[in-house]
């Protein structure tokens, strides 16, 4: 959340209006702490109205600040909703009513997109918006998904395979596809996303429910403590032969109660939840439920696909291994020639490696100079035939799998290369052999390139107590080498859908929570089994249905951020709860001596309990007023923290606990002492009360 947008004028004014609408007791009843505050405010106000036209300025101010306390809490919630709604609004714009070209019995009719039902097929051509979520069943097209993902580069969507899912509201920029609609109106991802943001306050997560219980219980205890205090005060007044009725009044007791009950966290609780969801959406992740986000914070095991997550999608040439009597440069030159026409990433990486290592510039070959031999699955090699001036084949350079080249060279495969190729395999690489007119020149070492910075991410995860498991279809040797390089804790080689599922079940049976990312249809069973399953938006419809979150950016490392968001959500709640309760200590020291300072006083002097007035507050009334004002203002002061979340750092639980306890526990004790004292000085200076 950027600072300049945070206190956006429109947002604030809407939120102010909302704060009043939310005063509806029905709305407040769901938040027991704020409900008690509301009832208290109403009681004090009713008392004042009853006594009209006489009124006490002190009581009037108390009533005012009690109402402010409720309003500030409403404002916090409204601000959080406002930020979410702004995002939903921009999403909704992508849902402007569009006409879909419905295909029925080979005939096209135009119908509004909102009338499409699951199973309908529609046609989309260049320029057409895609009317709803669905699956491409025919054709291939490039699609602009920027409305959803914010990513401007178009993506390819085609029938079959893992890139067949399309999202409503995106736009076809080229070609023609036929899409089978997979969601009824109101069920599409955009709909769900909007609903999620707008309803975040309504669905409570398990942890939130438990916290709410604790807060309600505290509220009840403080109700009893303050209620019984009234009777204890009456007893003491009788015993001391004093009249305390001027200070032990309903407004004062209500002030004490509202100060004690955890209004800070009670007021900010729903805002924290909404803001957590919003943070996730900002990261372009749609969670299907708040429960999933919370579960993300508890993840013990993270299962990540190797390709695209841990390594760059493709293998790259990393070294040339020449045969005896061949220089490396010779080999590089031949390999480059053989790869000139190879448009695969692997082929291009060979050209690039030769260029960077030996400054070999890729030659421009004209068709009359050369004939390219494309790669085929049956030959397992590709290459080039250089032609002489009579356009007869003069030189044939091939590169390909070891087995294919062995056949090609007629059994004259150098033995030292045999050893070398085994070495490459052991390191997790893939060897390619290069053969020039039947003579084996050497090997090219292709390897997976581990993404930059990924190792650091994994070590962060380890500190957080999360185990990473790499899933790959590679053989165990290759997998082990990449696992070691990437720094994952464990790997699964030659993974099949069944083995992935079995692995997740195994981890879960030993009590661990498992998160997984995936995109293919064959991932769907494992995704459905995982506790937190993040599907790539580019994934198939089956995968997207199986997961409980969808990453619109299709960036598999996003899972790490999701985990952080989940943890942050809990931490913010916990820290503010601690802060809220710690505040009570100072409030007691403000209010108890204020109310009972004169108790058992002899000859009008200061009573014994006035020594508890450690803050040296000006007068009983200013002390009570400062406490209640502090209590209200702290809610507003903490809104930014509630919406942004407590900062998460990747350290072990104990260190994190000490840090947060120090800041919010100790801070919660100290801050109100200072705050109340300052407010008291201000109040007595301005002369608000006697």
């Amino acid at each position: 959340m950027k600072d300049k947008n945070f206190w956006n004028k429109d947002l604030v004014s809407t939120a102010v209006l909302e704060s009043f609408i939310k005063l509806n007791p029905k709305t407040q009843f769901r938040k027991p702490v704020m409900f008690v505050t509301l009832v208290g405010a109403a009681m004090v106000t009713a008392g004042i109205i009853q006594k009209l036209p006489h009124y006490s300025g002190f009581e009037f101010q108390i009533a005012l600040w009690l109402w402010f306390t409720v309003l500030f809490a409403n404002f916090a919630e409204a601000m959080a909703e406002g930020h979410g709604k702004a995002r939903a609004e921009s999403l909704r714009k992508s849902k402007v009513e569009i006409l879909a070209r419905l295909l029925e019995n080979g005939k096209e009719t135009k119908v509004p997109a909102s009338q499409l039902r699951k199973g309908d097929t529609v046609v989309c051509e260049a320029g057409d918006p895609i009317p709803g979520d669905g699956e491409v069943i025919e054709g291939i097209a490039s699609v602009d998904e920027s409305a959803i993902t914010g990513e401007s580069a178009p993506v390819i969507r085609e029938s079959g395979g893992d890139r067949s899912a399309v999202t409503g509201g995106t736009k076809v920029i080229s070609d023609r596809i036929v899409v089978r609609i997979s969601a009824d109106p109101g069920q599409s991802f955009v709909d769900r996303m909007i609903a999620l943001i707008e309803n975040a306050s309504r669905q409570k997560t398990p942890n939130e429910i438990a916290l709410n219980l604790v807060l309600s219980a505290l509220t009840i205890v403080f109700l009893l403590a303050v209620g019984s205090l009234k009777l204890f005060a009456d007893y003491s007044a009788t015993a001391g032969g004093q009249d305390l009725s001027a200070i032990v009044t309903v407004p004062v007791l209500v002030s004490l109660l509202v100060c004690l009950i955890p209004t800070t966290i009670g007021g900010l609780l729903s805002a924290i939840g909404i803001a957590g969801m919003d943070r996730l959406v900002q990261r372009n992740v749609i969670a299907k439920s708040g429960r999933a986000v919370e579960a993300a914070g508890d993840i013990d095991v993270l299962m990540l696909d190797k390709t695209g997550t841990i390594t760059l999608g493709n293998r790259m040439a990393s070294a040339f291994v020449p045969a005896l009597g061949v220089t490396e440069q010779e080999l590089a030159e031949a390999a480059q020639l053989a790869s000139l026409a190879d448009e695969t990433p692997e082929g291009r990486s060979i050209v690039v490696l030769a260029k960077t290592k030996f400054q070999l510039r890729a030659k421009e070959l004209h068709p009359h100079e050369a004939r390219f031999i494309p790669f085929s699955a049956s030959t397992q090699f590709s290459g080039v035939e250089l032609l002489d001036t009579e356009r007869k084949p003069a030189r044939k350079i091939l590169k390909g799998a070891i087995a294919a080249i062995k056949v090609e060279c007629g059994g004259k495969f150098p033995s030292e290369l045999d050893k070398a190729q085994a070495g490459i395999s052991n390191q997790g690489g893939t060897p390619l052999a290069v053969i020039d007119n039947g003579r084996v020149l050497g090997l090219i070492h292709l390897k997976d390139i581990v993404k930059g910075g990924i190792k650091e991410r994994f070590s962060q995860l380890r500190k957080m107590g999360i185990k990473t498991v790499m899933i790959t279809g590679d053989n165990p040797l290759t997998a082990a080498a990449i696992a070691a390089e990437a720094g994952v804790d464990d790997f699964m080689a030659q993974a099949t859908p069944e083995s992935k599922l079995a692995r997740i079940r195994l981890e879960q049976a030993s009590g661990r929570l498992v998160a997984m990312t995936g995109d293919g249809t064959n991932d769907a069973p494992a995704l459905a089994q995982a506790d937190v399953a993040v599907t790539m938006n580019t994934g198939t419809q089956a995968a997207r249905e199986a997961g409980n979150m969808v990453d619109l950016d299709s960036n598999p490392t996003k899972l790490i951020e999701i985990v952080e968001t989940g943890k942050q959500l809990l931490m913010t709640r916990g820290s503010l709860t601690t802060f809220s309760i710690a505040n009570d200590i100072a409030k007691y020291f403000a209010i108890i001596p204020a109310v009972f300072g004169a108790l058992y006083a002899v000859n009008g002097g200061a009573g014994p309990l006035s020594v508890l007035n450690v803050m040296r507050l000006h007068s009983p009334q200013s002390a009570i007023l400062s406490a209640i004002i502090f209590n209200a203002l702290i809610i507003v002061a903490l809104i930014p923290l509630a919406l942004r979340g407590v900062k998460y750092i990747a350290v072990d639980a104990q260190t994190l606990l000490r840090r947060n306890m120090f800041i919010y526990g100790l801070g919660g004790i100290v801050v109100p002492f200072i705050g109340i004292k300052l407010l008291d000085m201000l109040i007595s200076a301005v002369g608000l009360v006697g």
Partner: protein
Amino acid sequence: MNKFEVSQIIFYITTLVFLARPLGSYVADALEAKSVAQGRIFGPIENLIYRLCGINTGEQMNWKGYAGALLAFNVLGFLAVFLLQLFQRYLPLNPNGSGPIEWALAFNTAVSFMTNTNWQSYAGETTLSYLTQMLGLTVQNFLSAATGVAVFAALARGLSGKQTSNIGNFWADITRFTIRVLLPLSLFVALLLLGSGVVQTFKPNAVVKTLEGAGQAIPLGPAASQIAIKQIGTNGGGFFNANSAHPLENPTPLSNFIEMLSLLLLPVACVFAYGRMTGNKRHAHILLLVMFTIWAVGLGLALYSEYSASSTIGGSALMEGKETRFGVTNSVLWAVSTTAASNGSVNAMHSSLSPIAGGVAIFNIMLGEVIFGGVGAGMYGMLLFVLLTVFLCGLMVGRTPEYLGKKVEKREIQMAILGILAPSAVILVGAALTCAVTSALSSLSAKGPHGLSEILYAWSSASGNNGSAFAGLNANTAFYNIGLAIAMLIGRFAVIIPCLAIAGSMGGKLPCPLSAGTLPTDTPTFGVLLAAVIVVVGGLTFFPSLALGAIVEQLLMLKGAAF
């Protein structure tokens, strides 16, 4: 305070831990029936009991079954004590001819002994027959302690169990604990006490001629046997009205030391037993350290208050209500321990303690009897606080809280909160009610803040199942007898039932392995937080009432006004 007194406190703690540690292992083995040697010695007696009562010890109970058995057993115990009191006149062993007890008092006493509270609205020596004392009260002294340990054992099993909602067999638990631990231990302590001069006889009261020539009846009775279990089982109900301040109940400094030792022995042993039963000794040590720290701070505060108060009151030691053979330090040490341990026996009158020392005693009880607490009861109460702390810590580190590898979820939090807050609520409501009822206020012997302390103490003592009295309050009225009995029932069963429910729900959970993301519960950091949660919850709940009672009284006393 002199060096001798300080070294005596240190000697006391050292001996206590030294003895409690092996006893803890013994208790754990007894509850889990693990030790072959124990089985050989006690097995035959237990099997006889099982056969007579038709108990199948192999039958495992889920939490509802366990709670049902526990409640049924407690109702039986209640009825036995209740009826014995009503009909003691017609029953044997009544040499002093004690008459029938009025029903409200009988109800109060029966509830009191069933709940391990042992609040006494009556004076033992003048009201109850020897039969009622021995067959009613002494038996309940054993069984109420065993009930507490059974709940503790069930909770320990639930927390450490692996995916089973069965938490043990209640009948086997109470039988084993009574036969293997309580009986031998109290026999041993009774003999020690006999040796140091505590009376044990069936003879009626002795009548002697005083120096003035008047006749004085000196109450006697089978005291030693009851006092041993009263101390061992954190019961606290004295044979004589003056409890352990009475010269025939606690005659010498040595008997005083033995009684103080047995007062905290089993509660401390239970902590060690917990470590052994859950296989997490370091965590148990942290719990013990937390208890000791809060206890020691309370003791320090109370001692400071006693000794500093003496300078305002003419420089002599505050000896009102204390026995000269024990002195100030031993009286305060006992007072702080007995209120921490939910024992409730006294060797000095708490009403006469300096206000803050009395306040420490009240606050110890208000904390929920978790600083050592009752036998078994202290540990299960403490575990509720542990769960609450774990929950708050879990939130602070951004992870669903876990305890001993199991997730702590809504249901456990709900139950823990109920168990922690129900007794506190009873104290506040009861004390407030008393202030509102004029007739109830006429029971007070002191006015002003001290009177408020008397009220708070009575309700705390009842709902904390402590049973000690502040003295001064005449509690033998229908209002207090019935009100306090209700407080005792809530204070006991509104904690036990949630504990068993937690045992059941945690037992069914799958323990997950520890990782760096899990918050360890066996570190000093956790200990500090646990202590903070206990003190803050107690402090926030009771600060206003203590301010108007003990705190203002101390401040007034320093200005020279006493109540």
